């Protein structure tokens, strides 16, 4: 098929509104008679609630509602994965500092804040658990009645003992990663409005509005057709506006239904930091056996994931980790166990990468350590063990699609001159000098979409208008990743329309059918296939109309530039006229698109199965300069190569790569959400350090395209794989420069200089 729109560098169709300030974000919305809400939170991270006295708060002039858990008409235990354990408002106990005790609606925010200060709570304070391994001790206090284990996943392949006995060397290492905040620029905000039919409409920056609606219906005890969720323009999400926004949506909806008036809550940055979920900190114990020539014979892995106060996505995040824990390598004997445990920290859930950035830090830095121990170049040890087409993964899946690992690794190594520079910098370690250069490589493979964790399909509605313009309605959302633009490109490609003729509707749960959540880097593949399916149906009817207008053709009509051309006779007609003709012929020019993803499978007992229906492959090289006196790491340049199937919008792919590396740099050397006895210490961007534009290095992209038979026009995904490689590449570069192995993140000044964090 000719590439008319797919594959072209395309500016975002929503960019003008954003850069001119015209885009409407949730907090911009003001409804007549709207009240302002406030969440009253716990003073202790872990305590039984003995009594809540709201009487004084209720008497404040201007206060219209003070609600506690008792006022919730439906369920008060929600969750986005399997376990439903999180209260909208805490009832029996509080489990982390973000827990709400009451919610207030008042005429203005200050009145609500004042009323909040009058609420009296009696607590019975309980011991605080911060560490997931400690949480699983028999003697530890139970955070939930069922105990502190959220889940346990395993993978068993081959014979681990035989594998280690074949090995010439065995390398063991413990790794620890930190808690990371999503740091979306727009804090959580939602407005609920009571409807005439007894229902409620919620506007807000919910990432997955269909999940929000399901939870709202359960909490409010309303049928789903009376709950309407509308997604406003999103100021970033990175996986972070799922649970936290579902719960905020419930809080504003409860207040709106109690008062009969619209209610808005917008969290301040500090509230957002305290309330919202984070990336799981992992404690990882890796043991790898290798032969002297670098061949890996066995890997034994045990991981403890810090799930925080509630289960959230822990079951699925850790499942992705268990599938990918051995990295993109051919390992015949594998035993992996991962446990997620409750603690009294912020609960942890979905964040870009979803359980893969943590394990990539472990297996990719360990691979360099093994190479060093065996005297093999890091490039060589990877080439020896990288998965190739036809190989079997740790979960027993045969990779019958094209495996592009060698291509992406070679692309970044060539572009960066990695092989020579690594040796040069290694030889330079012993020479005098305060500033040392280093270069590091990291690569990964990643399952696309939900895999065996969920039901996977996409659906949409396309409506061609009589003037030749098109409206797309689809439940896969745009939170800044450029989904609307690629969705429009797919329709444009098939229908020959220019992008200015295409509108992608705002998402409203009552209009577009559910296509599942916009997560797991599935947006392009799932929405692209659904849109392609619908657009083909419309195209077929336009072709029937064209046969009458410009004659039949056996070589197929050409759809391009808002025109349809018969290549056999050169005659052409505008899409507008073709649409008008189709209508006269009583042929529909609207269509539903549907795409069921291929089946996946999983055996929980053995940890074997067809985990994902396809995979993507990526590699990063990072070059750094380390100040040997202060431990300061200056990231000079990052090279990134990703195999994406087909780059629908190369500009969007590059944008994802730049952003993913910036976040990866934060994970690697800057960010840490810190606690003191369960109380968050870094609740704003003065102390929680994300990279500034000054810290982000030059980034060079090499996009590799090996079209996938499953993807629309061959496209797979790019959002998350970009976020799992920069940190291990930087840590490997620091090792190359200094000879010091870092096995905890962030590699901040103290860690780089002293090799460990100082006890604070």
């Amino acid at each position: 098929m000719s590439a008319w729109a797919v594959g072209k560098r395309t500016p975002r169709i929503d960019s003008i509104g954003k850069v001119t300030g015209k885009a409407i974000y949730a907090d911009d919305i003001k409804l007549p008679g709207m009240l302002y809400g406030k969440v009253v939170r716990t003073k202790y991270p872990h305590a039984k609630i003995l009594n809540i006295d709201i009487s004084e708060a209720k008497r404040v002039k201007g206060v219209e509602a003070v609600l506690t858990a008792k006022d919730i008409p439906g369920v008060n235990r929600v969750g986005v994965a399997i376990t439903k354990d999180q209260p909208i408002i805490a009832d029996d106990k509080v489990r982390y500092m973000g827990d709400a005790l009451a919610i207030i609606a008042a005429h203005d925010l200050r009145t609500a804040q004042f009323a909040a200060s009058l609420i009296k709570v009696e607590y019975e304070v309980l011991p605080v658990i911060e560490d997931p391994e400690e949480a699983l001790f028999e003697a530890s206090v139970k955070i939930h009645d069922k105990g502190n284990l959220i889940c346990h996943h395993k993978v068993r392949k081959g014979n681990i003992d035989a594998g280690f006995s074949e090995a010439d060397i065995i390398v063991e290492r413990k790794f620890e990663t930190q808690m990371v905040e999503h740091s979306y620029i727009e804090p959580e905000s939602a407005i609920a409005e009571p409807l005439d039919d007894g229902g409620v409409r919620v506007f807000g920056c919910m990432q997955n509005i269909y999940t929000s609606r399901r939870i709202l219906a359960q909490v409010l005890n309303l049928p789903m057709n009376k709950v309407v969720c509308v997604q406003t323009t999103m100021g970033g999400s990175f996986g972070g506006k799922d649970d936290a926004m579902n719960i905020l949506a419930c809080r504003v909806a409860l207040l709106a239904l109690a008062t009969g008036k619209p209610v808005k809550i917008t969290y301040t940055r500090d509230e957002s930091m305290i309330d919202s979920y984070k990336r799981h900190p992992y404690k990882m114990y890796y043991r790898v056996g290798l032969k002297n020539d670098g061949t890996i014979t066995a890997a034994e892995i045990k991981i403890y994931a810090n799930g925080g106060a509630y289960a959230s996505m822990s079951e699925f995040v850790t499942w992705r980790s268990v599938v990918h824990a051995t990295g993109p390598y051919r390992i015949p004997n594998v035993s992996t166990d991962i446990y997620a445990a409750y603690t009294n920290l912020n609960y942890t859930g979905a964040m870009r990468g979803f359980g893969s950035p943590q394990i990539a830090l472990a297996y990719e830095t360990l691979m360099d350590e093994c190479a060093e121990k065996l005297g093999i170049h890091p490039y060589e040890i990877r080439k020896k063990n990288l998965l190739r087409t036809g190989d079997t993964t740790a979960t027993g899946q045969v990779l019958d699609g094209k495996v592009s690992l060698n291509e992406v690794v070679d692309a970044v190594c060539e572009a960066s001159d990695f092989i020579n520079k690594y040796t040069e910098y290694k030889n330079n370690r012993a020479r005098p000098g305060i500033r040392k250069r280093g270069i590091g490589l990291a690569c990964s493979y990643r399952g696309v979409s939900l895999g065996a964790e969920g039901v996977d399909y996409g659906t949409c509605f396309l409506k061609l208008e009589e003037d030749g313009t098109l409206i797309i309605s689809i439940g896969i959302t745009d939170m800044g990743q450029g989904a609307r633009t690629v969705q429009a490109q797919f329709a444009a490609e098939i229908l020959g329309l220019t992008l200015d003729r295409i509108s992608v509707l705002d998402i409203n749960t009552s209009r577009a059918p559910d296509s599942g959540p916009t997560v797991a880097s599935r947006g392009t593949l799932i929405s692209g296939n659904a849109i392609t399916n619908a657009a083909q149906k419309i195209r077929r009817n336009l072709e029937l109309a064209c046969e009458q207008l410009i004659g039949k053709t056996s070589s197929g009509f050409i759809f391009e530039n808002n025109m349809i051309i018969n290549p056999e006779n050169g005659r052409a007609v505008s899409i507008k006229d073709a649409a008008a003709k189709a209508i006269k012929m009583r042929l529909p020019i609207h269509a539903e698109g549907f795409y069921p993803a291929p089946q996946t499978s999983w055996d929980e007992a053995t940890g074997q199965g067809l985990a994902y229906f396809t995979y993507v492959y990526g590699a990063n090289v990072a070059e750094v300069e380390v100040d040997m006196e202060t431990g300061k790491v200056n990231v000079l340049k990052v090279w990134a190569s990703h195999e994406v199937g087909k780059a629908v919008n190369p500009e969007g792919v590059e944008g994802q790569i730049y952003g993913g590396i910036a976040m990866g740099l934060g994970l690697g050397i800057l960010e840490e959400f810190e606690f003191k006895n369960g109380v968050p210490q870094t609740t704003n961007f003065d102390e929680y350090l994300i990279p500034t534009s000054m810290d982000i290095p030059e980034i060079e992209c090499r996009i590799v395209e090996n079209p996938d038979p499953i993807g629309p026009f061959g496209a797979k995904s790019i959002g998350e794989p970009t976020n799992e490689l920069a940190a291990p590449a930087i840590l490997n570069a620091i090792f190359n420069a200094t000879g010091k192995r870092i096995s905890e993140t962030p590699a901040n000044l103290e860690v780089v200089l002293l090799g460990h964090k100082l006890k604070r």
Partner: protein
Amino acid sequence: MKEFMVFVPRSVDEALEFLDTEKGSVILAGGSDLVVKLKERKLTPKYVVDISHIDELRFIKEDGDYIVLGPLMTHEELRLSPFIMEFAPILHEALSQLGSPQIRNIGTIGGNIVTASPVADSVPPLFVLDATLKLQKKSGKRVVHISEFGIGPQKTIIERNELLTEIKFKKMGAHEVGFFRKLGQRKALSIAKVSVAMWAMVKNDTIEDISIALGAVAPKVVYAKNGMSTLKGKPITPENIKEAANVIAERDCSPITDIRSTVDYRRAMTSSLFIDGCERVFGVSVEV
């Protein structure tokens, strides 16, 4: 619900009159620090006196051998001032590392001084430049040395009815060199883990006079007195600089462990920053 009233004086006299009669006021210049404290209710004043419209407090001028600054000069205005570049390069260097363009555009030098944070980037340079501050109240004025002004974190000797109206220091001339070094975790918007400012008068490769100030290693910005006496009158040699660096780390620092760093790291880094700065301005290479 009114939380506080805002008073906007148009002249120093008007401001001093108000401060003299009304208790419970806080002063707003740029607001980069104050507004955060008000939002977090760490301060709950009765009045906010917004002095940002008092034009007579916004100036930079030469006065013989001296430079005189109005406290409302923003960090960015000063950073770009040719006077500062020429006669106080140490301050220019510090302002270039302060905050971000947004903060430099709104924050003022007076605010940076009066806030009395031990990590304030403009204060160590003013210590080594021997700056004096003019404090005015309705009934009179006094001039104090910058080192006497701050007495602890967010604590100064300024009285509630006084206003900082002038900052004055001597121009740097021939034979005078200096630096400001700061260590933060990232390249912008970085709060110092440690900072060091130095000024020295050098003749015939000998340090005739020297001043060293340290930020973030004590409850307030402090002079490194032991380090200064170690180097004064000494020839510039790697050994002397190294010795002074050790003395500074061991005897002049009294750092704490907080969210930004730890005692041991801060101590080590003070010495390291000092050596790094000296290497550049003195053109020597110190083995460590």
